[in-house]
């Protein structure tokens, strides 16, 4: 390969445009505060956007000879045609790879600023994204070379978009348990992969092998003359077979918990408030309201909790979702972060979320007909601890689920109407029941002392 010709191709071809097709990946960088698993996960989701654009650029580039009327002239050259195509393919590939690498560098700088957590599979996933982008631009070039109509670029791009949409749609139903490991081979990652999970080494290898084999096959298709298209099919087929043998039997077996992401990062001083390592900025927002809630709980409860820990939930513990273990001395706070990795709740909402159920997590086994009563009990217990009237539901905010004031406030006043020692005893009994998640009517327990 001639460096001079490659340099010419880099300047004169659509390599720059191929790089611009990768631009949507840059939008994900601002999420670094939520952990780099979120950044790379969003980049994989954005493939549904970037791959059609890259395909269009490849198809546009491949029509160049036809567009400029030089096909016949170039056909008279004794140089094999693949020499010429190889330079163009390399220029297009360099365009997407360099652009994506630049985005990764910017992401790294941003991540360093916010102390973001890097999962160990981050770089493998980056390579998978790179391979898919390269595959898309080269497949577009192969299509553009084979069918050099003026409408080929938009047709190729929109066909890619329709294909990816249809595949994402039809495989979305397969997220549940079942033998559908092939879903792992789609460019956008299945929703099994989350901010606190890692791909297993086998699943990561399978995805990488498949994506690279697709990129290689697309490149071969573009430069192919005579029998080389058959080789391209062989490369893709071999990649598929290799990937399938690496994939686990079930979809959920392709991920594992990222133990380093869920390590608690705690305040050094009392009262201890902890957030997960995966989004450390949360601690800045949780520290104040969490400490305030702990102080209130310690004033109102016997055996009060002495720390607040961010709770997390995961499907990794299939068949049962993983949930925080109820503990008397720890409040598991349910956390919602915004796009930048900060707490999405206001300080007041955070304070209430920690105090809910007198510092207990919601039980997963509450029957549906009891949801409203259980929610009322959780809000009333928090109001009693904080010595504040229950808040009104907020349809657009965190409090969208709580029962209306005409339900919570009479219940709160009924509790306050009891003798003070009875109030303390019934809230303590309520808390014991909520920690044990026994199947009782906890609103009756809170207000009447018996369920």
């Amino acid at each position, binding site marked *: 390969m001639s460096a001079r010709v490659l340099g010419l191709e880099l300047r004169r071809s659509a390599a720059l445009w191929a790089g611009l097709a990768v631009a949507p990946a840059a939008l994900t960088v601002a999420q670094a505060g939520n952990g780099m698993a979120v950044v790379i996960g969003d980049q994989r989701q954005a493939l549904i956007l970037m791959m059609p654009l890259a395909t269009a650029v490849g198809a546009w580039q491949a029509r160049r000879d036809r567009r400029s009327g030089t096909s016949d002239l170039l056909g008279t050259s004794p140089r094999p045609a693949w020499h010429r195509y190889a330079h163009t393919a390399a220029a297009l590939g360099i365009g997407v790879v360099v652009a994506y690498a630049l985005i990764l560098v910017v992401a790294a700088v941003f991540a360093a600023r916010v102390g973001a957590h890097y999962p160990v599979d981050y770089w493998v996933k980056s390579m998978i994204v790179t391979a898919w982008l390269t595959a898309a631009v080269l497949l577009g070039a192969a299509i553009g070379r084979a069918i050099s109509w003026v409408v080929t670029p*938009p*047709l190729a791009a929109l066909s890619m978009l329709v294909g990816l949409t249809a595949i994402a749609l039809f495989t979305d139903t397969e997220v549940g348990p079942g033998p559908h490991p092939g879903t792992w081979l789609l460019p956008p990652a299945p929703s099994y992969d989350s901010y606190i999970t890692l791909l297993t080494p086998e699943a990561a290898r399978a995805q990488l092998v498949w994506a690279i084999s697709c990129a290689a096959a697309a490149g071969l298709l573009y430069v192919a003359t005579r029998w080389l298209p058959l080789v391209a099919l062989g490369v893709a087929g071999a990649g598929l077979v290799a990937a399938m043998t690496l994939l686990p039997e079930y979809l959920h077996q392709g991920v594992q918990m990222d133990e380093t992401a869920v390590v608690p990062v705690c305040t050094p001083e009392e009262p201890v408030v902890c957030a997960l390592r995966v989004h450390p900025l949360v601690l800045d927002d949780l520290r104040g309201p969490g400490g305030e809630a702990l102080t209130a709980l310690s004033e109102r409860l016997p055996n009060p909790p002495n720390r607040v820990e961010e709770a997390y939930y995961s499907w990794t513990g299939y068949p049962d979702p993983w949930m925080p273990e109820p503990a008397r001395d720890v409040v598991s706070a349910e956390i919602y972060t915004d796009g930048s990795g900060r707490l999405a709740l206001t300080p007041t909402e955070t304070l209430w979320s920690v105090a809910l159920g007198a510092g207990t997590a919601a039980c997963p086994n509450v029957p549906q007909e009891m949801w409203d009563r259980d929610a009322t009990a959780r809000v009333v217990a928090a109001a009693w601890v904080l010595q504040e009237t229950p808040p009104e539901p907020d349809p657009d905010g965190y409090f969208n689920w709580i029962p209306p004031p005409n339900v919570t406030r009479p219940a709160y006043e009924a509790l306050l109407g009891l003798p003070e020692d009875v109030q303390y005893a019934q809230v303590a009994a309520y808390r014991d029941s909520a920690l044990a998640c026994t199947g009782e009517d906890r609103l009756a327990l809170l207000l009447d002392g018996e369920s």
Partner: protein
Amino acid sequence: MISPSGPHHAIALLLRSRRIGPWLAIALGSTAALRGIAGLATEAFTDRPDVSAAFGFYAVTIAVACAGPGLAGPDLELDRAAARDWRPLRLAHVVLIAGLVSALVATAGSSQQTLGPAAQILRNTVGLTGVLALGAVALGVARCWVPGVLLTVAAPFLAFRFGGDPPAWAHVITWPVEIAASRVSWVMALALATVGTAAYSLLGPRA
């Protein structure tokens, strides 16, 4: 018998120079293919009306984008040299694209709204035809599909990212995937259609 210099002959030549035949073939083929995929999807996802609307949107985009190369004849200079006012013909061409595509896609998806509600198809066709015409004026006919394709790629993604509560500026991009009752989406589509059609009719395409 059609005389070589008669109006019928002129219309036949005009339609040929505007590549109406290949465009119709591609529009019919792509709409049929998307109707097939959307049919499978609507059977599988009976509770997801947005799915059929998405495929209807794609069908409209493909049919409209493929009309792009026909927005100019093979030789722009030759057209300009002709002693003919092209403005009414250009206006008619844009109206023809919007009318044919909306009728084609709406008819293809008419059974159980397989390609989405007809009002949504009409809105998207009108808006995207305006974008195509604007692209022909600003970028030339060879590249006039670019803004429409960018919009089609970005709109579902942005709408998904913003969920049910997009910021005001996002409607500029997400209007094609909004429901037919969304007033702002109609304002966007009609504004783009008006500006695009007016610019193309009055100024003509770039090479």
